[in-house]
C-alpha cells in the first residue's frame, strides 16, 4: 500500500529523504500512477504487448519449431491440436497452424496499428481545424462527415475492397482514409472547448499565429484523449478487418491474417473446428484487451476523477 500524502494540490509521495525536492504531481505522473494500480488495464496491456511481441518473433518460433507458414503438405492436412511436429495442427492445405497464427498476428495487429495512426493523422488536423475556426468551414466538414457516415461503413469498405482486392498496404490506406471521422468528431468538440480557455486566449494576445495556436497550444492538450481513441479504434479496426475478411473482401490468402484464417476455418468447420476457434479467440481477446486499455486510460488521465 502506498501512503497517502497530500499537501494542497501537491503530491509528495515520491519524497523519501528530507533533502530531496518536493515532486509536484503532474498530469502524467498522476495518470501513470493510477494506471499502475489499475490491475485489469495492466493485465490487458501485458496481454496485448506479449501477443505483439510473440507475433513479431514469428520467424524465430518458426525456425525453432522447424515449420514454415506457407509450406503446403496436403497429405498431412487437418492435423488435430498437439499433433507431431505441429503444435496447433494444420489447416486444409497442411500448413502449420501455429506459425500461421503468429504471422497472421503480425499482419492483423500491424494493419490495426497503422490504420489507427493514419486515421489519427487525418482526423486530428481536420478536427482541430474545424473546431478552431468554426463557422462555414466547420459546417462544411460536418456535412462531409455526415455524408460519409450515412453510407453504412461496412458497405463502403466492402465495395472498395471488393473492387481493389487489396494488399496489406492498400488495406491500411482504405481503413485509414475512411475511418478518420470518429476521431475528427472527438477532436473537433475538444478543440472548440479548448480554444476558449485562458491559456489559448493569452497566447493569442501575445500574437501567436493561428497555426501555432492550433498545433502548439490546442493539439498537445488533447494528448490523453488521442491515446484513448487510438486504443479504442485499434480494437475496432481488428474487428473490421476480420469482418471484412469474413465476407471475403479482406486480404487474400496466402498472406495470413486472423480474419482470413477465421473465414477459411468456417468452410472446414466440421472437419477441424480448431481452425475456426483459435483465430476467433485471438481476435476476441485482443479486441477485449484494447477496449479495457481504452477505458483504463480514459479513467487514468481524466482530471475530473479524484484519487
Amino acid at each position: 500500500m502506498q501512503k497517502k500524502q497530500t499537501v494542497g494540490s501537491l503530491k509528495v509521495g515520491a519524497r523519501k529523504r528530507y533533502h530531496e525536492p518536493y515532486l509536484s504531481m503532474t498530469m502524467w505522473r498522476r495518470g501513470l500512477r493510477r494506471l499502475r494500480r489499475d490491475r485489469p488495464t495492466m493485465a490487458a496491456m501485458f496481454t496485448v504487448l506479449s501477443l505483439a511481441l510473440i507475433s513479431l518473433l514469428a520467424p524465430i518460433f518458426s525456425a525453432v519449431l522447424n515449420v514454415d507458414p506457407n509450406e503446403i503438405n496436403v497429405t498431412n492436412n487437418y492435423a488435430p491440436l498437439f499433433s507431431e511436429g505441429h503444435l496447433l495442427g494444420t489447416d486444409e492445405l497442411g500448413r502449420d497452424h501455429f506459425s500461421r497464427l503468429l504471422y497472421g498476428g503480425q499482419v492483423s495487429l500491424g494493419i490495426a496499428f497503422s490504420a489507427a495512426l493514419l486515421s489519427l493523422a487525418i482526423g486530428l488536423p481536420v478536427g482541430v481545424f474545424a473546431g478552431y475556426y468554426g463557422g462555414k468551414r466547420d459546417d462544411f466538414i460536418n456535412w462531409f462527415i455526415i455524408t460519409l457516415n450515412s453510407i453504412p461503413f461496412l458497405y463502403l469498405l466492402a465495395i472498395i475492397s471488393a473492387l481493389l482486392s487489396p494488399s496489406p498496404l492498400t488495406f491500411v490506406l482504405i481503413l485509414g482514409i475512411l475511418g478518420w471521422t470518429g476521431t475528427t468528431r472527438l477532436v473537433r468538440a475538444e478543440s472548440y472547448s479548448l480554444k476558449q480557455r485562458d491559456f489559448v486566449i493569452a497566447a493569442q494576445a501575445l500574437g501567436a499565429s493561428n497555426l501555432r495556436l492550433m498545433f502548439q497550444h490546442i493539439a498537445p492538450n488533447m494528448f490523453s484523449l488521442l491515446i484513448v481513441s487510438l486504443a479504442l479504434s485499434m480494437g475496432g479496426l481488428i474487428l473490421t478487418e476480420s469482418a471484412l475478411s469474413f465476407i471475403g473482401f479482406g486480404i487474400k490468402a496466402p498472406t495470413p491474417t486472423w480474419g482470413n484464417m477465421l473465414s477459411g476455418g468456417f468452410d472446414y468447420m466440421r472437419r477441424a473446428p480448431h481452425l475456426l476457434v483459435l483465430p476467433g479467440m485471438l481476435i476476441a481477446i485482443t479486441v477485449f484487451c484494447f477496449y479495457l486499455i481504452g477505458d483504463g486510460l480514459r479513467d487514468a488521465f481524466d482530471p475530473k476523477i479524484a484519487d
Partner: protein
Amino acid sequence: MQEYIIRRLLQGIPTFFGITFVVYAIILLAPGDPITILAFDPTMRQDERDRLAAQLGVNDPFYIQYLRWLVGDDWMMVDTNYDGEVDSWGDNYGILRGDFGTSFKFRGSNPLNLIAERLGATIELNVAVLLTGLTSGIGIGVLAAVYRGRFFDKFTRIFAVIGDSLPAFWLGLMLLVFFGITLPRFLIDFGIGDGSPLLPMGGRCPPVRGGCPPLFERLHYLLLPTIVSSVGVIAVWSRLMRASMLEIINSDYIRTGRAKGLTARSIWFKHALRNAILPFAVFLGPVFFSLLGGSIIIERIFTWPGVGLVTFDALVSRDYPVLMTSVVIAAVLTIFAYILSDILYAVFDPRVRF
C-alpha cells in the same frame, strides 16, 4: 417546427447527392468490370462481349453513367443497335424519377423488386433483435443501477464489455459449432439424437413449396441469429440505461419523492425509470430504420435471405444497379434516421427550441 423540419429535409438533399456521387465514382473508377464476370464463357466472341457492354452501358465515361443513372437518358439520342452511331431516344428515366434501372445479373428485373422480396426476412429478424435486445438491455441496466456496486452490477458490467468486444460473427460461428457439431456428437455417447444439428444451421424456414409457414412454427430458425445480433444491443443499452438511471436518481424530484415517503419500488420503477427511458425512446425509430439496410455478416453466417444477402450477391457479381439501389436505400434511411431522431428529440424535450 414545420420550418425546422423542412430545413432539415432540405439539408439532406446535398448529402444524398454527395453519397451517390462518391459511391458511383468508387464503383466505376475501380479496376475490373462486370462484363468479365457476366460473360464468364470462353466461347463468347469479342464482338458479343462488346455488344453486351454497350447494352449495359458500362463503357461510357463515369460521369455519363452517373448522369444516366441519376436523370435518365430519354432526353438524348443514344445508340440502340450498337453500330456506333446514335439513332434513338434513350429509355432510362433515372433514379430521380423512380427508375432504378435493371439488374445486370437477373436481366430485366427491377432492383427494387429484388430488394423488396427480401425485406420481409430482414424486418422479421430486426424486430426480433430489437425486442430481445431492448427488453433485456433496459432490464439489466435498470437492475444494475438499483443494485449498484453489488454482484449483479459488477457481473453485468463485465458482460457488457465482453459483449461489446466479441466479434458478432465469431460468436455466431461458435454457436454454430456448438449446436451443430460439438453438442450433437457429445450427446451421441449418451444415446441421445443421431448427431444431426440441434438447431437449424441457417435459412429462414424449412424448405417447403409455397413460401414460409407462419412465424410461430419456425421460431427456432430465429433463435441463433437473434441471440448473436442482440448481444451487442444488450451490451450498449444496459450501460446507457444504467448511466441514465443513476443520473436521474440523484435529481431533486427523486429526493422530494423520498422525502414524502414513497416506497423504493415506486421511486425506482415508476418515477426514475420513466424519466430515464425518455431520452432513448426517441432513438427507437431511427435505430429500427438504420437496421433495415440489413446486416451482411449475420445474414451470411445464417444464410438468412434478407437485404444484406442481396447486397452481398450484388457486390460479388458486380451488379451495379442492384448495389447502387441498396446503397441508396441504406443511405436514405440513415439520413432520415438522423433527421427523425433530431425532430423527435425536439418534440420530447421541451428545452430544445427552434
